[in-house]
């Protein structure tokens, strides 16, 4: 990866003092993941350019990586953009090679180090997960002129579209150490990834390098979230610290926190819940939040409605099929009416998270006796699912291939046969209300279908008829006169035979 810094400050060669790298020779430095080289393609009175070229050892990257297999994402791959694209490796190299400059110290030119100078930064390949727009949103508030050119994905296949990489040129007049700090923080933010484990010390680093600019940056929430690799606990810590820093209105902060958390929770619960051990072909990498995410109350409303129905049914034993990370289970646990609660999911990973969130290991025995988690599938008959009064299937069926619905119907309504079944699924008609959702697209990439109200009701009535249930329907979420509510719910009651 490569970074150049050009100044037209006079004498421009003072850049050498500021960076503590002599423009008259090329220098190399060992890094834990490769080598960094600093050289000056030009070094005149008027213009001086320093280049930082970082060579990442591509074999070492894969072979020397510690940690469990399959959890390194791209770092498991030899075919990897890391040696080329600006990423957290570059940040580490900047801190290593230009550490003194970044701290604002300079023996030879101490005043210049604190003084704004004209600077031009070029990054030939910057990943921007968030598009050109994000580049502007991140850099412009900090006083940069942004020139970003998107790179094509493959000249031979123009229909593949453009790549996520930009050639980024930034122009500004600021003290060098400030620019280096901005680069240090924002490069991994643009990349939305880190090559190393993000722990508590990252919060401190962010505070240090973000001092004086992050707390007032309009995108501080996104920067923080991405910098801390979406670890919710750390994000909240950091956001709390930022609030103190800026001395902002506590209500605003609380709102910010709530929105952050809701968005995160939503992305955790309903976006790709799990990465299968054998990744399916073309498994999605990351997804931009869907509009629904920004309406956090919908999920709450949905779970609330499910809870209300189950409580109203008089059920004492309930099973949540496709429980994900256990949000509904937590709500069920709070109700003493339910003496036997089972959460089932096909994703083992989700169940582990659910166990964590429920603090299953620290639960008092009496409480623990009420709840169980089960790895299972709605595609297979399962004796462990029989004998429940109530069952919930929340936002699950739309993840099943239509030809496999028949198995699901039999597994649930014929073999498990709970007294009450609550099924929720998106109402496709409502999608027109999400402005940013392109017409004809589903709300989630893994949705195999989304039904209109008529389609859902036709299906539900047929199922009820076939298996001896009676069904009624309930809208969930804000109801629109024309297109209905965003979520539709079917409540099936088993009829006496």
């Amino acid at each position: 990866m490569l970074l150049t810094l050009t100044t037209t400050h006079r004498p421009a060669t003072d850049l050498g003092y500021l960076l503590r790298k002599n423009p008259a020779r090329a220098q190399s430095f060992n890094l834990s993941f490769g080598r960094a080289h600093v050289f000056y393609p030009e070094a005149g009175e008027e213009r001086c350019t320093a280049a930082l070229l970082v060579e990442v050892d591509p074999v070492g990257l894969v072979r020397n990586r510690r940690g469990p297999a399959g959890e390194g994402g791209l770092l498991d791959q030899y075919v990897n953009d890391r040696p080329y694209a600006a990423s957290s490796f570059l940040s580490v190299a900047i801190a290593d090679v230009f550490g003194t400059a970044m701290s604002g110290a300079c023996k030879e030119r101490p005043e210049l180090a604190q003084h704004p100078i004209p600077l031009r930064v070029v990054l030939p390949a910057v990943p921007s997960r968030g598009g050109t727009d994000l580049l502007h949103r991140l850099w412009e508030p900090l006083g940069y002129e942004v020139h970003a050119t998107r790179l094509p994905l493959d000249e031979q296949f123009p229909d593949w579209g453009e790549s996520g990489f930009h050639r980024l040129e930034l122009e500004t007049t600021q003290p060098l150490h400030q620019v280096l700090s901005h680069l240090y923080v924002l490069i991994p933010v643009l990349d939305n990834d880190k090559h190393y484990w993000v722990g508590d010390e990252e919060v401190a680093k962010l505070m240090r390098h973000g001092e004086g600019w992050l707390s007032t940056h309009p995108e501080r929430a996104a920067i923080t979230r991405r910098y801390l690799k979406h670890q919710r606990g750390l994000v909240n810590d950091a956001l709390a610290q930022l609030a103190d820093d800026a001395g902002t209105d506590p209500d605003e902060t609380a709102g910010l926190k709530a929105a952050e958390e809701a968005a995160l929770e939503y992305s955790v619960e309903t976006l790709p819940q799990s990465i299968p051990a054998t990744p399916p072909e073309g498994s999605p990498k990351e997804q931009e939040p869907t509009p629904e995410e920004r309406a956090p109350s919908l999920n709450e409303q949905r779970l609330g409605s499910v809870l209300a129905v189950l409580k109203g049914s008089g059920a004492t034993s309930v099973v949540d099929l496709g429980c994900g990370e256990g949000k509904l289970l937590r709500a069920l646990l709070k109700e003493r009416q339910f003496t036997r609660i089972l959460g089932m999911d096909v994703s083992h990973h989700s169940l582990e998270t659910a166990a964590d969130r429920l603090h299953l290991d620290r639960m008092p025995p009496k409480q623990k006796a009420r709840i169980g988690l089960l790895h299972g599938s709605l595609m297979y008959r399962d004796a462990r699912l029989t004998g429940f009064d109530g069952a919930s299937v929340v936002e699950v069926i739309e993840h099943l291939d239509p030809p496999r619905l028949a198995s699901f119907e039999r597994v649930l309504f014929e073999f498990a046969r709970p007294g009450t079944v609550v099924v929720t699924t998106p109402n496709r008609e409502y999608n027109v209300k999400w402005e940013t959702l392109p017409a004809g697209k589903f709300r989630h990439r893994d949705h195999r279908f989304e039904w209109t109200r008529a389609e859902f009701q036709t299906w539900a009535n047929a199922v009820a008829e076939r298996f001896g249930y009676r069904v009624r329907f309930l809208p969930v979420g804000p109801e629109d006169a024309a297109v209905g509510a965003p979520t539709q719910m079917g409540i099936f009651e088993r009829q006496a035979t």
Partner: protein
Amino acid sequence: MTLTIPELSLVALVGVSGSGKSTFARRLFKPTEILSSDTCRGLVSDDENSQPATKDAFELLHFIARKRLAAGKLTVVDATNVQPESRKPLVQLAREFHCLPVAIVLDVPESIAHARNKARPDREFGPHVIRQQASQLHRSLRRLQREGFRKVHVLRSLEEIEAAVIERQPLWNNLRHEHGPFDIIGDVHGCYDELVELLQQLGYSVGEASGMSPTDAPEPTAPRTGTTCVLRGPEGRKLIFLGDLVDRGPRVPQVLKLVMGAVASGTALCVPGNHDMKLMRKLRGSNVQITHGLAESLEQLAEEPEAFQEQVADFLDGLISHYVLDDGRLVVAHAGMKESMQGRGSSAVRDFALYGETTGETDEFDRPIRYNWAAEYRGSATVVYGHTPVPEPEWLNRTINIDTGCVFGGRLTALRYPENELVSVPARQTYAEPRRPFLEPAEQAPGLSAQQEHDDVLDLADVTGKRLINTRLHASVTVREENATAALEVMSRFAVNPKWLLYLPPTMSPCGTSQLDGLLEHPAEAFAYYRHEGVPRVICEEKHMGSRAVVIVCRDEAAARQRFGIMEEGFGVCYTRTGRRFFDDEPKETEFLSRVRDAINVAGFWDEFQTDWVCLDCELMPWSAKAQALLTEQYAPVGTAAKAMLAHATDLLEQTGTRGLDVEELLARTSARRSMATDYVSAYQRYCWPVTSVNDLKLAPFHLLATEGRVHTDKSHEWHMHTLARLAGGILMATPFRIVDITDPQSEVDATRWWEELTATGGEGMVVKPLDFVARGKRGLIQPAVKCRGREYLRIIYGPEYTAPENLDRLRSRGLNRKRSLALREFALGLEALERFTRREPLRRVHECVFGVLALESEPVDPRL
């Protein structure tokens, strides 16, 4: 003194402390057969004489006894067992596991027991304990039979104890040594004429001693006395009657005579039916209700001499509830037999054999609702039974009911075993009206067999947990629980309908690592591997760079329904190596499958292979068709970033060089990296082209895996290549190949040159396989194929810069053993799935194997290999 005990029994030794039970047991039974209460006391408390440990010790003893009896192992309980309350749980245990409780009493004089205990330092109890035990024992002696012990042996002296030998008696139902072949006949119910006709069709000659052919005889007035049926069967074959010989039908005595004669002469076996038992009880003088056709039997028998009636009663009384035959592979019983009862003896077993199991409820005709034990049957033995008339005999989980209701106007059916052919003759008339109409088709989805109906939903218990799957090729393959867990998710979320999934392809190992300059793989290592395994000739097939695809095509939708139980999901499927549907777009899939079907039509495979379906192992191109996401999210971006960054770096370094700075080495390296990045982009670009319609696809089938009744792994790869080349044309293409004699260096040189040509133009390389589909070497099964990939292709595997010497040197250290072991296990499982499917085994048995392949795929193996 010889003590006979049934081979599967629970033996309770009864005797006071010091009576020598342990010594006796050690002398006559295997150490593992003996469960000693003292040992159990020791296990739970470190003290074999600890009285406070008694309760736990016996819980442990009973626990182990349960495990052994469930597994069908004779078990000896070495405890005093002098009190009825200690014996009672043993009798219950024996009942629960349908084996016989046996008591062996060691009755030695108290003085001897006392002396022995005194001689042992660890036994500190006084003589009063022995005295009390002895009196309990003597009180028990008379009660043992009543308590339920089926055999009681009492040894009354030291001499008797020392002289005793054990003889283990096989159970009456154990005819494992009888291997048939058999002709098994369903419920006859007095339909003598149909029986004779059926027997003749089966190749038996039937005659009466009078010389008159029974079929010519005038009907019910035929001579009823003094005639014996003579039955001669085809060489070596034996008849088995499934009971219910009597009642309802017109010629009950004739049927009885024929069967009794055949059984007496050893030509036939017979198990009893519920009707036979009721008749027997009536003949023995019991007061039974004269219903369900018993009146007819009695009326007809009344015309026979009393002696005959006596013979009939004796014959029926002597029938054994069920038989286990052919080394345990075949079980016959009137109403069926669930696995846990097979080969066991108890009144519960007998009741099951006669009546089956009921749910305790009754239907609208007021008949007990039968519990469908066959639906849950998971045993390995074939079970043939009758009892409930069915319109068509249908296999379900290796069981088949062949009572086709002859007496109700249906047919009389025989099953030929081991051929599993059904032979039947129609009833000449309706002799009785069934209470429940049986000829109306059962409530099934149209066109589905009972097995398919049953298989519509698979059971989780058949796939999860640690599993051992027996395969024909590779003994048993273990699937670890955590891998099954991973597979469950992939299978549930992404795979096609399991009814289509009759195969998943195995992973393929590369050849050994080449040490040649600039190369990671070269054909020499592939040839050497097979030569060292003793294989003289191999086939080299061009490796197409696309996506692995399994294609199943049926003649039409009806065939898909009939053979796969697939309804309204088209006439075929194309899925990836993880079982995922290849096409998201249904019309496109249909169009694609139509092309394949057209090619098969033209090539005439349907007739040639006598089949309505074909399963092909293929490569589908272009790579970009399926890997579009991978390309645009990983491969192309890497190229984009690499080219942009390295171009800029090269320029800057050149500029720096012109300033007179020494950056020569860095510049050389950076421009080399730049050209490798360019090569990398060209490498993946070769495997991409736009697909706007099915016409832009290419399909290269390389294995004709299976057709009806056949898995074509008995054919050489040359046969597969030639046969599949006949499909070429349109989107289907033949795969270039050559046969190489790897004992001839020149032949190898030629093949290597071919590989060099293929890879020089950017081809992926080739696959080297032994000529035989299944090849064995010195240590068993060898790799069914190894791949030998080209230098440029490997850039998209090992990264753009892998050919830099410092990278290549490190990449050469790669271990292939795991990959190869995995490849063999997956190969064995894949072929096993096909075998099971073509043998029409239940879906869960097929699914178990493909599920296993998917589970093994989650084992951590270097994905570059």
